[in-house]
């Protein structure tokens, strides 16, 4: 993964400071496009199966919200695997959408927990722990991939892999 300077592991340590390049050339040697693309497909399928089979929800607003996650993850996969500047934009936007959806999901959990604490008073260790575990699981299972992937896409290495001009 790219370091803080956006330097890819295969770049020489003595790389000169970046200069804006008017017409970026694609770095087709970077394997991360395929790794992230594969992970995106796998997670999109996993999310879809989970929402469809494991946690089906009859309430439309909840169903719509939940389905944004596999759909945006799938869009992220398509953009990532396209490998073009347009794909880069799709992947970044879709990854941001997953993150936004995840954040809203966390806010929904917290708002619901606040309601229950308001009505029932002492939330109880079990319920509080359960809510925190839910939030932690959502971050781990849903947010982690788009966080690192969008971070990668916005590094110089990520931009070069897609032929996106480096600022």
């Amino acid at each position, binding site marked *: 993964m790219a370091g803080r300077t956006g330097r890819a592991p295969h770049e020489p340590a003595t790389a000169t400071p970046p200069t804006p390049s008017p017409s970026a050339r694609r770095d087709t040697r970077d394997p991360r496009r395929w790794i992230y693309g594969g992970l995106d497909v796998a997670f999109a399928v996993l999310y879809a199966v989970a929402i469809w089979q494991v946690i089906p929800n009859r309430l439309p607003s909840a169903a719509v919200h939940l389905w944004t996650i596999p759909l945006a993850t799938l869009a992220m996969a398509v953009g990532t695997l396209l490998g073009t500047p347009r794909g880069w934009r799709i992947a970044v936007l879709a990854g941001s959408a997953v993150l936004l959806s995840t954040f809203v999901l966390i806010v929904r959990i917290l*708002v619901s927990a606040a309601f229950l604490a*308001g009505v029932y008073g002492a939330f109880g260790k079990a319920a509080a722990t359960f809510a925190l575990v839910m939030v932690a699981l959502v971050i781990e299972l849903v947010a982690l991939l788009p966080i690192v992937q969008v971070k990668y896409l916005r590094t110089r290495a990520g931009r070069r892999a897609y032929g996106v001009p480096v600022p």
Partner: protein
Amino acid sequence: MTRRAAAVVCVWTLPSLVCLVATALVYRSFRISPPTRLDATERTRVIAVLRAALADPLAAPIPAPDVHHALSGPLAVTVWANGRSIARVDALGADLATTAVEAAALLRAQPGLRALSAATRATARLQVDLVAGTGPLGGGSPLFDLLAIPGIADMLAINPGVEGIAAVLEGKPVLLLPHELVAMKLVSAKRPSEVLPDFAIGVDLPRIGQLLAARAGVPGTLPPEVLVRFRTDTFVEPPDRAGPPLALYRGLPDAPPVTGAALREAALRGGRYLVAHLAPSGRYVYEHDLWTGAATDATRTGGNYSMPRHAGTTYFLAELYRITREPWLREPIERAFAHLADLLAQGHCAGTLPDGEPFDCVLDTGETVAHLGSTALAVVALAEYQRATGDPRYLALATRLAAWLRYMQRPDGSFRHVYDVPTRTPDDRTELPYYSGEAALALARMQGISGDAGYGAAAVRALDWLVDWYDFFMAGFFYGEEHWTCIAAEASWPVGRRAKYMEFCHGYGAFLRAQQAAAEPGSDEADFAGAYNVTPFVVPYNTPAGSRTEAMISAYLLGQHHGTPDPRVAAQIRAALAYVLRQQLRPDSDFDVIGQGDGAVPGTPIDRNIRIDYVQHVCSAMIRASEWIDAAP
């Protein structure tokens, strides 16, 4: 600060800030703090004004009491007579003293009360509900409505038994008090799970809107947007007005302290309830809804009458007799056991084993399959009869039933759980909860009453299998329903003198303690302390507090036998008993029940439906604990 630095700061702080603000706003919007309660003197003064109005509606009003408190809402008065709410008035004012006088005036104006006899007015009990705070229902907060997980506001809208629902129409409040909502079953109106069809939760807001509209004299229904939740400081007159009014929470007054004497008295109270619900035929009134007075007809056979529950309840009465020697228990026990023997004979399950030994098994009417647990519980009950009375009249029957139990046991100690009677074939595949532990207990009891070491050996083989089953990675973190195992382990002492039984039961106790509500004085759910429950958002069932305590008593006694009683188990038992002592209906708390309710143990804190086994499990725990609780740490 550079643009990048600002972005980094925002990324690391804004999400947390949004979460914090949203949480705080929603919590503040919905929170109704528990009320500051009136003290005994203040309660007495308020009730005195109302009692004067009830005692003699035509007498001159007495002056306003010296209880000047600013009120947050109306003062509601309910008059209970013979378990029924015969009058309700709501008074609105700024000061408690003047509002109490206003409520008394409204009571005087009730034509129904004037028509009551003096005796009825004297025994009627007054309940006061002071509205102490209000809050919105889900649907009344835009932020919550936009963001909350769908269904939360419907399923968990109010704290049942603690909160009521009101509307204000043209400046006049209309109330459905907390006890009215639960009595009308308006807080358990939805069944969200097809897997758990008996699990009911959720408020019936359309029906509540209709009821409130009817009370306000408005046609149609009230929309949810105009409804609010409220909490009350509630108190009721004690029986015969002996002492200050009793503060209620979730409809119940405080319980007596957990002492051996209090537990013994409570268990006997439960015994009296059961005896009062025993028909001349020896059959129990299986269920009694004390809110409506509807009860199962004990003169009719069939229906959903459970023979294992008949056996279990009769076992408890025999146990109560063995420990207390109360003479009034003896005849009802004889009657109930005679009926049990009749029921067993009607099963036509008897036969001869391959080795020629006669056997019998319990078969419910119309069934073709005999269940191990039913026969095991029958043996436990019959053995308890002999333990209690010394009379061996049922020993032969118990021996035949125990022969079948031993036939159903495999060489490794495990049991077949189901037996096809027409083909005389045990089912080697079906496994059901409880049965193996129940069978182990039956065999241990048979050793006790017959002295036949074969039973003891069979019980130990069964217990070894049950306990050793937990020899796997992560064992100790997960347990099934093992309360019968621990009861059997203690019953097998001293034959089953094995430290692993004690260690297993102490481990099971630790597992159960993790599900036991802790005592947090002042919290909204403090009355659940000691109950076994997995979430504070659903009221606990009372029966597990009894049945698991029965098991924990055995676990504690096992520790005593081995010289290492676990004080944590003793504390666990004490907490559960404090919970069930409060749940049991007694003269203090039976003001709102129709019929003989003294000694009954309802299914939940917000229910008044009684089934015989609810009383059995709770009162069995009480009487067993009464023997040693005063000496425990």
